[in-house]
């Protein structure tokens, strides 16, 4: 093994793999290590043997749901926004060469004890059963304002200042009812609690635009999802990194971290020997003493079903949001539904992953409304995850640690973390360039 690198990356979660790929493209010499024998770390997709041994160690998988290799269950349930930043990074780095994506069939919201499709266009809003006649007109006016709003054209602002006025004030301005505000804020802007109401409206405006442009991209829903599960994402970026010279070692525990006299990272010792680099990027599990719990804990229930979710029109995939107000909570409950249509389970099965931020001492009971929505289950595996964030920014010890994957339904906060770490590591902000074509890369490798 070579001894000197520019960057050592520990953990092959999505954040680490995107950074590894971007830095390799920049010409940095990257060594990427994971103690586990599979890619993905906390954001891997596991087969049933792996999943049962992690969440039900006393009850190993017995083959009751068919062949193990047909199953790839995400540890962190999320979808990609079709027009979001992860899609943008995938396109620019051409990692899309290695993966295929499919639309998520529907986006639903829970209201008054049942679920309904989230209206995404003004037409859908007008035909939605979620609102009465007058409320539909008000909603339509509100959406028109959002769509028409142009920064440079003051006549489209309708005397609203997105940076000064709160979202609550804008809802009031359009006379929207509480239930309507709930699904704008939670099902379209994808806020998972109501803190946004008293903050400037800009962020919520941006989020609604992201939702609308994402729906506009392929129709049906704003989400896309990779065939064979989210675990394909870190693998795709790891391949990108490898193609640009990155060295990968799985199944390689860190025997020792090496520091200089100033407490700065200088390298690692593994079974392959000593590797040195002035910079380390890692997920929180590699530096437990350098991260702190945010206090938020997420409960995730992975449910195996043999039927589609009732009232979704037999959708093969869906996002269902239960806004907190609807069930007397502070945080929303999310249900991500995927099936064999995305090649993540055996034919005839569906996987529903329920998640929320824990609010009581009996977290499994908090998921009750979601269990009612999804109907009978064949089996349920539950896990609770602490959310960590780094204590320092890495400037002192040269260790740049990513945040835990948050409970949001998409990857926007993950790509924010990627960009922040990239900037701290390189000293400049990330500018995505279109990757070279296959031919140009062939030339680069001397294959001319």
């Amino acid at each position, binding site marked *: 093994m070579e001894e000197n690198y520019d960057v050592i990356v520990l953990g092959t979660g999505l954040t680490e793999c995107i950074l590894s790929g971007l830095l390799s493209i920049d010409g940095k010499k990257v060594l990427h290590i994971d103690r586990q024998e599979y890619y993905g770390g906390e954001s891997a997709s596991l087969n049933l043997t792996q999943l049962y041994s992690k969440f039900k160690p006393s009850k190993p998988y017995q083959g009751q749901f068919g062949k193990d290799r047909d199953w790839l269950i995400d540890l962190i349930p999320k979808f990609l926004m079709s027009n979001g930043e992860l899609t943008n990074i995938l396109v620019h780095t051409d990692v899309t060469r290695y993966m295929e994506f499919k639309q998520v069939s529907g986006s639903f919201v829970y209201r008054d004890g049942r679920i309904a499709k989230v209206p995404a266009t003004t037409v859908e809003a007008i035909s939605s059963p979620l609102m009465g006649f007058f409320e539909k007109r008000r909603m339509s006016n509100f959406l028109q304002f959002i769509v028409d709003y142009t920064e440079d054209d003051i006549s489209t602002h309708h005397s609203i200042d997105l940076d000064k006025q709160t979202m609550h004030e804008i809802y009031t301005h359009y006379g929207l009812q509480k239930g309507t505000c709930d699904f704008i804020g939670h099902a379209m802007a994808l806020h998972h609690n109501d803190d946004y109401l008293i903050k400037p409206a800009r962020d919520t405006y941006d989020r609604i635009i992201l939702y609308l442009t994402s729906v506009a991209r392929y129709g049906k829903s704003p989400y896309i999802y990779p065939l064979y599960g989210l675990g394909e994402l870190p693998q795709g970026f790891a*391949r990108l990194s490898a193609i640009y010279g990155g060295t990968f070692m799985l199944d390689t525990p860190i025997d020792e971290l090496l520091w200089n006299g100033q407490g700065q990272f200088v390298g690692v010792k593994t079974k392959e020997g000593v590797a040195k680099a002035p910079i380390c990027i890692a997920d929180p599990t590699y530096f437990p003493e350098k991260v702190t719990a945010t206090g938020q804990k997420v409960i995730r229930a992975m449910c195996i079903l043999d039927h589609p979710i009732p009232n979704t029109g037999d959708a093969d995939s869906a996002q269902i949001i239960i806004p907190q107000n609807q069930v007397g909570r502070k945080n929303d409950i999310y249900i991500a539904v995927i099936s064999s249509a995305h090649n993540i389970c055996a034919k005839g099965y569906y996987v529903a992953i329920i998640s929320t931020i824990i609010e009581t001492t009996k977290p499994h009971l908090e998921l009750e409304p979601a269990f009612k929505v999804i109907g009978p289950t064949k089996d349920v595996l539950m896990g609770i995850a602490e959310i960590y964030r780094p204590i320092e920014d890495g400037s002192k010890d040269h260790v740049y640690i990513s945040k835990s994957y948050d409970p949001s339904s998409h990857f926007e906060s993950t790509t924010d973390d990627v960009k922040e770490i990239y900037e701290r590591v390189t000293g400049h902000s990330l500018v995505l360039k279109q990757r070279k074509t296959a031919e140009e890369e062939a030339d680069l*490798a001397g*294959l*001319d």
Partner: protein
Amino acid sequence: MTERRFAQFKLVLLGESAVGKSSVVQRFVKDSFSDFRESTIGAAFLTQTVDIDDTTTVKFEIWDTAGQERYRSLASIYYRNAQAALVVYDITQKASLDKAKYWIKELQKQANSDIIIALVGNKTDLQDQREVSIEEAQSFAQGMGLLYFEVSAKTGQGVKECFKQIAVKLPIEESLKRRRDRKNRTVDLNRRPNTNEQQCSC
């Protein structure tokens, strides 16, 4: 006149480092050879076509390991939907055949069960240094139901023939149908969003 059909297949390369995996592909794709190659970097996604009859062209989408085989860190994404594999060893290095056997086992574990695997002994230009006999490799390949070839990336001997033999074994009809089906089901992220859609649906 019948229209020409193009069937596309993913082919993955496997084998120990330095047996000449990339060189075999370089010979096939560019019909060239360089004596001093760095370990694979940069190019890991090449295509080349083979006409198998008057109406059918097979396009190979060739995946190189990008060095990820070195510490046995190939991702499952690498094997995913591969329809053919070239497992390369060096006829002058006996140990490289054992490594080839390891990769064949991995393929049987991780790849589609109908994948076509070719065992390829490279460096026939170095006959005087031969450590692996044709008989030994051939009988192993036969026992495992693999295609078997000996080639020289340096002289080009056997390279084209090897890919052609793989091409004629591939399930053309099935592939054309599967590709059509998949096109209808998946989305193309490189397609720019249709910005008019929002207004149109109003």
